[in-house]
């Protein structure tokens, strides 16, 4: 009889833990703000790369583009631009936009990083 009662207590404990996790992860998760750009969704990252590519097509300064892409952290600018191009191609971005990103990737690959 006593063991039976303790079983209910332990069961209730586990049910409580489960309910707490469900509440904390799903119903009311921690609010995040002041995030860094590396947490952006892939399509936003790709669109950012497209913005940099649109600007590059005008100013032709790979160093400036590299600085703009540095917002994403420690990855190399070429790698960031390449990921953007891969995403853009996989998601049927318009041909002119793909060409702009490709142009940026090519320029960054050729860029030595020395001004």
């Amino acid at each position, binding site marked *: 009889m006593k063991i039976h*009662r303790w079983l*209910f*207590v*332990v*069961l*209730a*404990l*586990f*049910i*409580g*833990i*489960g*309910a*707490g*996790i*469900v*509440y*904390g*992860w799903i119903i009311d*998760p*921690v609010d*995040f*703000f*002041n*995030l*860094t*750009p590396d*947490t*952006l*969704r*892939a*399509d*936003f990252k*790709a*669109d*950012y790369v*497209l*913005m*940099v590519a*649109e*600007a*590059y*097509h*005008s*100013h*032709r300064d790979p160093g400036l583009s590299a600085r*703009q892409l540095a*917002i994403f952290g420690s990855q190399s600018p070429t790698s960031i631009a390449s990921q953007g191009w891969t*995403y*853009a191609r996989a*998601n049927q*971005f*318009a*041909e*002119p*936009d793909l*060409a*702009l990103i*490709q*142009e940026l990737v090519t320029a960054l690959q050729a860029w030595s990083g020395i001004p």
Partner: protein
Amino acid sequence: MSRFPWGVFLALLLGFGAGLAYAWVISPLQVVDAVPSALRDDFKDQYRSAIAAAYAGAGNIERAQARLALLGDTNSIEALNAQAQRLLANGEFQSADQVVLLSAALQGNGIALVPPPSTPSMQPADIQPSLPPSTLSPIPTSPTQEIFTSTPEVTPTQTFAVAATPRPTQTPIPTIGVSFKLIAQESLCDSNLPDGLLQVLVLNSNRRQMPGMGIRITWETNEDRFFTGLKPELGNGYADFLMTPNIAYSVQLAQGSDVASGLIAPACQTSSGEHYSGGFKLTFQQPK
């Protein structure tokens, strides 16, 4: 009458607390797939600068508007103007120019961008600027809240109908090289104004105020730039600068204009005999 199962109830509460502590403190969900509106303010500034740079390059105002909307600013134009001020304060003139131009374009004040000509030798062969609007890439749209997942997933891009890229050639463009005329120069003695206030008003040929106009001011061996449109409450074509007493300034528009030179803050006196520095009001107008 059965007894209330206090042990079970307390265990349930204890478990709930422990679960909550685990979910909120020990192992909160990692953020992936965040939206631009959740970025830190300085990153939002960088995002906005990139939007302005892309607009300066491609001249696509609809796309710029769609991108700005992702940042969740209450008023995009005010956010751009405030950022332009910060950029100017940091000496980032080129970026400030782009931000001000985008702000002006959003206000529809007649400044339009013509995309710069591409260098033919460097233009990729497969760029087709004349493609129909339906082929433009979608701008990602922002959900109301970030998506939290334990593993990063690539969400398919949601479609966003982007209208045709207007290549604005119909609106009046302040052409570089066409010199603006200095049509009025007044010295002001108004004790209600800050000392040494130099006010500049820039008008187009139809006498409408023009925002985003760069103004170059020089004195002794120094030079500075400021822009119209950063104080929209005083007029889109308005800009001002505080002069130091007894120093002669020269002012002209960065795009080319008549030069207002020898501007020394006038010595003024209130009715009670107090001395203060007056100012100037210069009005430039684009010739017809």
